[in-house]
């Protein structure tokens, strides 16, 4: 083989490819929930150090995303939605993605420790390791409950954000953790219902692929039935005020009604899954608004 004719991978990669490795869209949610937790936490952090802490959380999430893409390049290549990612498309070499992820993750944890405290840095490290090792490597390809476990990885940033301000973790951040944890299955399974064909092709054991659409609909309803009371718990326990309480009560009722509609639906093709798509979109709004309400509660009522 004449190696001089082949482009070296680094000749193909653009800076945008490295940015894409960070999964910037996933990062948005992580940064938002962590920032809300920081704003809602009792205590004070210098605004500059607070901003650096948020940056560390974002970079750590990006590092986890890069390591996830490094490990999953083979299945990403099989799905339409992910086939053009930098690794399956051959624009970034696997070794580069691995080094990029490890360096960013280690850097983010170290700077978090120096800027805020080592409790926050510890939970930040746990969040990366959990996402990469427990979710990506261990469970994603083995169990249809992979999304449930992945939800925990997405929920850690609130613990990190809270710890960055207070130096410890109390009941409220763990309840916020539980809200994101329980929100993830209905959110992603709603998506998985109308993306089932894609996951099936890639051989990822998503619930609609392994247990069918009807079982997934029931699971969505079950997790929503757990999510709503847990969402209301901070207000019931007196940890938040009426702004948060009223918001979760109203939005929780809507979420529940939509989950019931999804459970009753019998649509089998993506084009007919209007209620599923609506639940998916509403679930994003739900999380954004209740965390916004949490901050409003703290800033206006505390």
């Amino acid at each position: 083989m004449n190696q001089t004719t082949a482009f070296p991978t680094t000749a193909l990669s653009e800076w945008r490819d490295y940015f894409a490795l960070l999964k910037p869209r996933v990062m948005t949610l992580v940064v938002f929930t962590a920032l809300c937790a920081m704003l809602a936490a009792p205590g004070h952090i210098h605004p500059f150090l607070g901003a650096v802490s948020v940056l560390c959380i974002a970079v750590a999430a990006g590092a986890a995303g890069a390591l996830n893409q490094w490990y999953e390049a083979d299945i990403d290549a099989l799905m339409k939605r992910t086939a053009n990612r930098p690794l399956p498309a051959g624009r970034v070499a696997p070794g580069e993605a691995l080094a990029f992820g490890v360096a960013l993750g280690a850097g983010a944890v170290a700077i978090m420790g120096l800027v805020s405290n080592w409790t926050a840095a510890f939970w930040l490290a746990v969040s990366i390791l959990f996402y990469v090792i427990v979710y990506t490597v261990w469970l994603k390809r083995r169990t249809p409950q992979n999304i449930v476990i992945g939800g925990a990885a997405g929920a850690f940033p609130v613990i990190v954000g809270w710890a960055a301000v207070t130096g410890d973790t109390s009941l409220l951040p763990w309840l916020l953790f539980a809200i994101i944890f329980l929100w993830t299955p209905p959110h992603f399974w709603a998506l998985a219902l109308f993306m089932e064909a894609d996951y099936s092709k890639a051989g990822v054991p998503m619930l609609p692929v392994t247990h069918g659409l009807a079982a997934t609909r029931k699971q969505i309803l079950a997790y929503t039935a757990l999510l709503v009371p847990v969402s209301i718990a901070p207000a019931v326990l007196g940890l938040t005020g009426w702004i948060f309480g009223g918001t979760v009560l109203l939005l929780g009722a809507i979420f529940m009604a939509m989950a019931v509609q999804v459970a009753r639906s019998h649509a089998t093709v993506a084009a007919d899954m209007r209620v599923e798509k609506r639940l998916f979109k509403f679930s994003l709004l739900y999380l954004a608004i209740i965390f916004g309400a949490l901050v409003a509660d703290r800033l206006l009522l505390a």
Partner: protein
Amino acid sequence: MSADWTPAERAAFEQRRRARNIALGIVLGALALLFFGITVVRMIK
């Protein structure tokens, strides 16, 4: 290694490399500013 690239391929490669180097420069500059800022805030505190 790249002896038989066409001029167009070489130009495209050089453009990508330049953009990558500028991005890396911005990141390193931002990191230096970040540590400077952290030091100043820590000293004031």
